[in-house]
């Protein structure tokens, strides 16, 4: 049928047009990294995610909260229970009121959320020159091409071009919408000492922290990928069987049999 061909042409036209337009805008297109979690067989790179957790807690956590992340979630990226308890114990959280009704604090437990660096948004704003450091739990999913975007943002700090009108207290970064961001460049050569001895280059730290943030945004990613293979194989097989059955069942119809002849 001719109209199907026309529809196909229209479809490819609109996809092309869509692709062309999303590239436009005020920010540069993110750098493309070949992440371990990409593709149908994609998995978390556990050593990288663990290093990312170290970057996160030593650098980002001083400004950003991670409100959907609990210490116990670290089990998915390969930490043992006693290590998780030890990580948690480094933090203090509000406890139950004591017998006189006074506030108490206690060491954090694995089921607690990572404590936020600021008591509320206003405190966060006033400590950051008026800009709010957003919660990072879902950041990878809350931006187009999120993993590549955050990586690009981390390594994208540059001197502003001479003709660029940079506002006071902002930093030039072409990957951010409008190219100027309130967050100062968070990563610098040798900023932290990786526990596993990996050299802490900004590129390495950026990749690791994205690996960690991808995991926090989508803890079920790996499980989803693995289940997907099974489901798709099952459906493919089922569909093939249904196709063969259909061909067999339809034989008399194709042969022109009349089912209502008495």
């Amino acid at each position, binding site marked *: *049928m*001719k*109209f199907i061909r*026309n*529809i196909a*042409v*229209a*479809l490819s*036209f*609109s996809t092309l*047009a*869509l692709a062309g*337009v999303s590239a436009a805008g005020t920010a540069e297109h993110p750098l493309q990294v070949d992440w371990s979690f990409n593709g*149908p067989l994609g998995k978390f790179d556990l050593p990288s995610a663990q290093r990312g957790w170290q970057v996160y807690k030593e650098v980002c956590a001083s400004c950003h909260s991670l409100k*959907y992340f609990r210490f116990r979630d670290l089990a998915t990226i390969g930490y043992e229970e006693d290590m998780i308890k030890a990580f948690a114990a480094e933090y203090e959280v509000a406890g139950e009121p004591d017998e006189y009704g006074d506030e108490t604090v206690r060491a954090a437990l694995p089921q607690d959320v990572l404590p936020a660096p600021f008591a509320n948004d206003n405190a966060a704003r006033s400590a950051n020159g008026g800009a709010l450091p*957003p919660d990072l*739990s*879902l950041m990878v*999913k*809350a*931006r*187009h091409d*999120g993993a590549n975007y955050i990586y690009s943002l981390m390594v994208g700090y540059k001197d502003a071009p001479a003709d660029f009108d940079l506002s006071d207290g902002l930093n030039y970064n072409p990957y951010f*919408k409008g190219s100027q961001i309130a967050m100062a460049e968070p990563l610098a050569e040798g900023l932290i000492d990786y526990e596993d001895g990996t050299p802490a280059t900004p590129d390495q730290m950026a990749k690791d922290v994205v690996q960690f943030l991808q995991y926090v*945004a989508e*803890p*079920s990613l790996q499980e*989803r*990928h693995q*289940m*997907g293979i099974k*489901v*798709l194989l099952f*459906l*493919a097989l*089922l*569909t093939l069987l*249904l*196709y063969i*059955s*259909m061909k067999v*069942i*339809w034989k008399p*119809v194709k042969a*022109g049999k*009349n*089912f*209502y*002849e008495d």
Partner: protein
Amino acid sequence: MAEWETVKPENKALGWFEERLPVLSLVNNVVGPATPTPRNLNYFWNFGSLAGLMLVIQIISGVVLAMHYTPTTGLAFDSVERIMRDVNYGWLIRYMHANGASFFFIAVYIHIFRGLYFGSYKAPREVLWMLGVVIFLLMMATAFMGYVLPWGQMSFWGATVITSLFSAIPLIGESVVQLLWGGFSVDEPTLVRFFSLHYLLPFLITGVVILHLWAKKISDSGNPLGIEVKTSADQIPFHPFYTIKDAFGAGVFFLILAAFIFYMPNALGHPDNYIPADSLATPDSIVPEWYFLPYYAILRSVDFPLGIPGVIEILDAKLLGVIAMFASILVWLGLPWLDTSKVRSGNFRPMFKWFFAFLVIDMFILMWLGGQKPEGNIPLYGKFATLYYFAYFFVVLPVLSRKEKTLPLPESISSAVLKPAE
């Protein structure tokens, strides 16, 4: 309508029950061996049953989501994240529901455009067709309110933009909007009533689907040749032939759906909906879900008043836009009377075929335009695309009905599709 055949089960207990409530006979006569169906249905006829399956999937996954979801502004976003993280297979259920909504629309769109091409709206199937349009409208309302529930940025701002449209209605507009909102802005009461209605409407849809199938039983299935069944040789029993064909089609459809659920679950959504709703921060651009984009484009394209400039204004621009948007779907109700050609199937209408192909392309263009910022030439293109959309229904179809020279129709279905006996 085909004869009604009663089932007489061998089993005594079943027979006893069947005499009192003939459920087996019902199934037998609607999708069973006793349902004579044209022998030449092509794969476009698969999408009705697929839409039905998607409705069932949406209801089942939705009921489970509702067990864990909290419809209050402070907790809605968090509760969806809890579903994604803490509920066993919660991520699966939620991705099924969110992508299922898109695939429900894909199935229904193909089903509707099948009807537009093969003239399924013509006598004697007018009521069957109109019930379909009612289902589509209810689906749109359901999906719109569902998208508000996760209470992300797009939920909030989409709800604000779309509900505000009703303020264009003269006299009662403001009150209607306040009724929808349950206050003076999209807020807690809005979320709670949308949740309640989002739960209710799918069951109303189910009711209309039953009427739709009943009407189908009365007028029988159409077919790609668009001619009526003449002899018994034109038909085959629904079961097993179309049950197996529908099952195979469902297999293919679910393969594609599963590829989305497991490998690109957020491809059809908007990243902004992973940012909690914030009434103080407007997103860069507010984009509805893809299945609403054509109508959104029409709404934005009609940005001029009706009247004579400087002399009289009959309808203001905002109201005219809203009317155009609703009219773009309601016009489907008028199809049986706009297209009076005696020939149903586009296969025998050499001119119609082309105008129809352009309508399909036009829908894709409108969909694309609806997702763009209204800058540069976009609004102009929108006006042309909107013009063609309405011209198709109000000019092309009525004119073609009179002028088009249609091709000769075959004698009967069997003579057209069966090889002459050897």
